[in-house]
């Protein structure tokens, strides 16, 4: 059984990632006896910037997005969110509901703000450690702009992003603004 090894590895990686140290160096440092490929994901912000370098056409989501009600799936920051909006659960767009904990790591989307026409990097941080928020079905979203498979974990919204907290039980999802994508 390698359970304790994995527990430790997971914790270590999580803390380092939360401190902004590149995942590549971490995995190299972890010195695992097994496989290391050349396909390591870049840091969230770096990757999002790289994506931005490509010509960015406006998606259907972007065209229809609103900037007034962050408790709806079509709020502009929710272009690739999979889950229950914390704003419907006693939290807010970057605030976890009482009694839950923000995951120190998250996945990353790039959404266009219809007010200033800029693209922003959004950290979809899950709030964790409590049974699922039972909010209105209007608050259960599954949007998919630029959402990639789990082999690109930092662009995937199917993962429960509750690494490093007291328990990995999923409660709801926030959409915190990290910075401009340009």
């Amino acid at each position, binding site marked *: 059984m390698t359970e304790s090894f994995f527990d430790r590895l997971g914790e270590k990686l999580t803390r380092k990632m939360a401190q902004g140290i590149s995942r590549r160096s971490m995995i190299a440092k972890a010195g695992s006896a097994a496989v290391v490929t050349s396909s390591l994901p870049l840091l969230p912000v770096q990757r999002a910037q790289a994506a931005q370098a490509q010509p960015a056409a406006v998606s259907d989501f972007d065209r229809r997005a609103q900037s007034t009600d962050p408790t709806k799936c079509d709020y502009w920051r929710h272009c690739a969110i999979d889950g229950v909006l914390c704003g*419907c*659960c*006693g939290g807010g767009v970057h605030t976890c509901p*009482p009694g*839950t904990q923000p995951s120190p790591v998250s996945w990353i989307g790039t959404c266009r703000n219809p*007010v*200033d026409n800029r693209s*922003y990097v959004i950290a979809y941080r899950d709030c964790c450690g409590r049974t699922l*928020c039972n909010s*209105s079905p209007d608050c259960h979203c599954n949007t998919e702009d630029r959402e990639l498979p789990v082999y690109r974990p930092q662009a995937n919204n199917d993962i429960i992003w509750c690494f490093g907290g007291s328990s990995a039980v999923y409660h709801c999802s926030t959409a915190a603004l990290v910075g401009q994508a340009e």
Partner: protein
Amino acid sequence: MTGWFRHVSAMVASVVVSAPAVAQAAEPSPALQAEQSDVAQLPAMGAHWVFPYTRTTAITIYDGDNGHVLGTIPATPLANNVITPDRRTIYVTETSWSLVDHGDRHDMLQQFDARTLERVRELALPPRALVGRKQQNFDVDANGKLGFIFDLSPASAVTVVDLSAFRVVRTVDIPGCALVFPWQSGGFSSLCGDGSLTNVAVGTDGKASVTHSKPFFSADGDPVYEQSLAERAKGDAYFITYSGKVMKAHLGPQPVIEPAWSIQQAAGQPAAGTGVQELAWRPGGTQPFAMSYYNHHLFALMHTGTYWTHKTAGTEVWELDTQAHRLVRRIDLPAPAKVVAVSQDEKPLLYANGENGNLMVIDLQSGKTLRNTHIDAGAMTVTPP
């Protein structure tokens, strides 16, 4: 958990993003700034907060005035909760298995801070009763010192918890009896199958002294509802029978039980009997009664039917003056409901959980239905004391 949580809370700064004032101004608006994640805290508990059990996973805290969700307390279908008289603490009794439906069984008392909704501490309990949710499975006394948790394994007992020391004081066997109706302080009474009460005083030394009252109802003839009401602040109980007879009792080692009056007679109708073909307005539901303790008005979910319809949903709520023994008004519900609850202020809101999973909110001053929203509401709803 708590240590890590504090760490994160300390890390997050309070950077707030101000939205651009003008949407499409000619000069470019400044870019939005980065945000830090934080965790919400609640203000002091309001009288119009309401705690319905939702789905099979949670008690969801709603603001009755605007319908917003305020937070979530975890609760399986086996859980029961109590809000303490000072509204600062929420206790949850819970039973779970380590591997979902097998593995080690855990019976727990969990204490939540009402502002942070953090689980402050938890206590392992002897096996609790696994029965339908009702307030009478778990309650605390008026000063919040003792908690009483009904056990059924399958012998009947009550686990007494010292809530300050957060430890089990003792488990008191109550054979043939069940449920807890707390006294003002220092004890509880339980309803018994022979129509009597068993009364358990818990001394400061932790010792239990037990008395038995004479039978005052017939479990075979017209049983008292499990969901009869306890007014902790006064140590009173309102025992209500299947047919709609109300008996006020002052609880203690020697309970004093007042004569029964009929809900139907209070409404100018014949008293309802126990005939299986006798049509009458009758109480029913999984939480059929609530009371506004400032004026002692009883709210009863009522439907038309024969005897043995004590779990049937109500189509109306009858408001009854328990001092004058008369009907105040009949409130038509938007949909049949199994649960009624009422806020404990003087501008009360009435809540009803529909069979359809809706939470109905009715302003008792205007009589208006403020909301009728699907929230997967279940078999119980709690309001702040």
